[in-house]
């Protein structure tokens, strides 16, 4: 009889079967633990302490399960799928969707489920491909903004004094303009290219996030355990990374999801005005082009707008769900 080697640890399983299968098997083993409050697996009964530590995370995932949030997550999932797999999802290729054809402004039909727009481009295809441009501009821009906003906010809030004053005045100057106008001017100087959009939104976002993080840092500094860490001799680095930063994580995450929606709306507005990157497929651009044929070909201008709404709605729903799930006052639910 051949002795079977029993897989004992997750590391072994990972080596043998690969990461994804390990992930799924972990999920399968723990699904009851994650989703049912009050369930304790047998092997953890003896280790209640570890279980208690995990309890808040379980509750968090449990609270995320409200219907609207799941709808939001579903929308985001579909959106990311559109963005990544656009060439395989849509029947028409990128060149067909940005090219010329004789098929202008046809009503919805078999070949074009939502009709065609100017130059015979398929509306549905452009909806699918448009997800790419919106997401690729919004996400890196916000990551840039969060990264530098954290730096500025932590330096400003932690060290205080005149550094705080000067940095916050500079951020106030950036916040003194409505965003769309600053971006308009910056784009008109440097040209309407995708990378410049990312940079412009990133720079503008730094002001907002640094303010947010500075507020969190100031609050965190008052906490007793932070004071205790200081008294017991923690140096600056350790204070910041271990004690203060974890407290700032929460509002930043929530603001991040809402801001992605905001950037997508703002981008749509810019491309509506004609300032977008014309080599990209943008929903706002479609709306602008379709505007002149609103009365005889309404499908061209209406569907991109619906897509924008669904996209931003997805982010808003997830943001709302996160905010409600993380709310400390509702910890008892």
């Amino acid at each position, binding site marked *: 009889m051949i002795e079977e080697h029993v897989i004992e640890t997750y590391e072994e399983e990972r080596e043998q079967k690969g990461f994804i299968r390990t992930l799924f098997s972990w999920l399968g083993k723990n699904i009851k633990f994650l989703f049912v409050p009050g369930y304790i697996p047998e092997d953890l009964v003896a280790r209640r302490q570890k279980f208690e530590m995990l309890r808040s995370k379980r509750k968090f995932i449990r609270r995320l399960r409200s219907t609207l949030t799941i709808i939001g997550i579903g929308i985001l999932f579909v959106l990311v799928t559109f963005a990544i797999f656009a060439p395989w999802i849509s029947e028409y290729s990128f060149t067909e969707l940005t090219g010329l054809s004789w098929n202008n402004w046809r009503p919805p039909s078999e070949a074009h489920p939502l009709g065609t727009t100017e130059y015979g481009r398929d509306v549905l295809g452009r909806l699918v491909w448009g997800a790419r441009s919106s997401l690729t501009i919004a996400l890196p821009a916000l990551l840039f903004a969060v990264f530098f906003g954290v730096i500025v906010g932590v330096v400003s809030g932690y060290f205080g004094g005149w550094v705080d004053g000067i940095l916050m005045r500079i951020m106030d100057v950036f916040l*003194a*303009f409505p965003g769309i106008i600053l971006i308009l001017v910056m784009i008109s*100087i440097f040209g309407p290219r995708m990378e410049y959009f990312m940079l412009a939104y990133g720079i503008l976002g730094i002001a907002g996030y640094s303010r947010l993080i500075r507020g969190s840092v100031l609050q965190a500094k008052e906490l007793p355990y932070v004071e205790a860490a200081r008294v017991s001799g923690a140096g600056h680095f350790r204070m910041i990374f271990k004690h203060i930063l974890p407290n700032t994580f929460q509002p930043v995450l929530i603001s991040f999801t809402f801001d992605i929606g905001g950037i997508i709306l703002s981008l749509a507005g810019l491309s509506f*005005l*004609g300032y977008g990157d014309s080599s990209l497929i943008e929903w706002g651009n479609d709306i602008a082009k379709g505007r002149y044929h609103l009365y005889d070909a309404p499908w061209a201008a209406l569907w991109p707008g619906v897509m924008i709404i669904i996209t931003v709605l997805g982010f808003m729903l997830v943001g709302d769900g996160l905010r409600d799930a993380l709310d400390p006052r509702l910890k008892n639910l």
Partner: protein
Amino acid sequence: MSLLKYIFRRILIMIPVLFGAITVVFILSRMMPGDPTSAYLPVNATIEHREAIRRYLGLDQPLIIQYFRYIGDLLTGNWGLSSNISKGQPVWDLIWQRFPRTLELTLFSVLVASLIGIRAGVFTAKHRNKAKDTAVRGFALVGVSIPVFWLGMLMQYSLTYMLPNWIEAVWGVDVKIFPAVGYKTAGYADPPMITGFRLIDSLVSGKLYLFVDYLHHLILPVLALSFITLASITRQTRSSMLEVLQQDYIRTARAKGCKEKDVVSSHALKNALIPTITIIGLSFGSLLGGAVLTETTFNLKGMGNLMINAIRRYDYFVINATVFLTALIFVVVNLLMDVLYGLLDPRIRF
């Protein structure tokens, strides 16, 4: 009085921010392509002529002197001449012609959005988790996700195309309820320029038909622009009301026998309004941006439209003036919001 001192302190803080904003505009405008002198010259001007104008405008001076001259010009209203939009026209006149329209649009939108939004937010907080609450919340959530220009277009399509067609089909009457574009009907003359605000001017000079006409043309743009702000104000009011209603002093007020109406309006609302006012102040910025989009959709000749065209054509002086004006408005609105804070919450004044 500490309120006055508070106001004074806020003004003192705003001044460096305003100067910082002017500096940013200066830097950006110097980096823009486009020649400031072309506003003052015919197209076929000689080089000497151009050089003379450059010296007149002070463009050959060192940058620091240009900077101070720039600030002086901006603050005294000497905003130069437009080169592309309407050649040779002083920018001050051009903006003063259009700025009141944008201001009317924005002010009306803020008013409508605040009034309806705060009441809606209180309503949903009172009936939380019931069907009415869910309906309004869903509405508000969708409202925050709608792009302004698309909403305007939707209103144009449904209210100026589908609605009259339906009315005609059902009742045979060919009537236009809402005007699709424009800020006034074509044949009407402008009222005499007393304040520049055509609503006030038409009222004051007795031409009521003009007043009604302007209001009529403002309905759809204001509806579109205020819808989004309304949604966000509702959301914010709801969440801050919920937070405030859990406080102990509300329980005390109820225990002491206050009527629920009074509890909500005089105890809870004042405290809940503080974050809401932040949102209203912030929304003003997005309203200004949204006014740009709304003006493009409805073809209202306002300052937003002017800014877009100026940026597109690199009209140096117009861009400077409009961006400066926008920043000024934003700073002033923030100042007003801070003062309102101080009025509402005495703790902040100290």
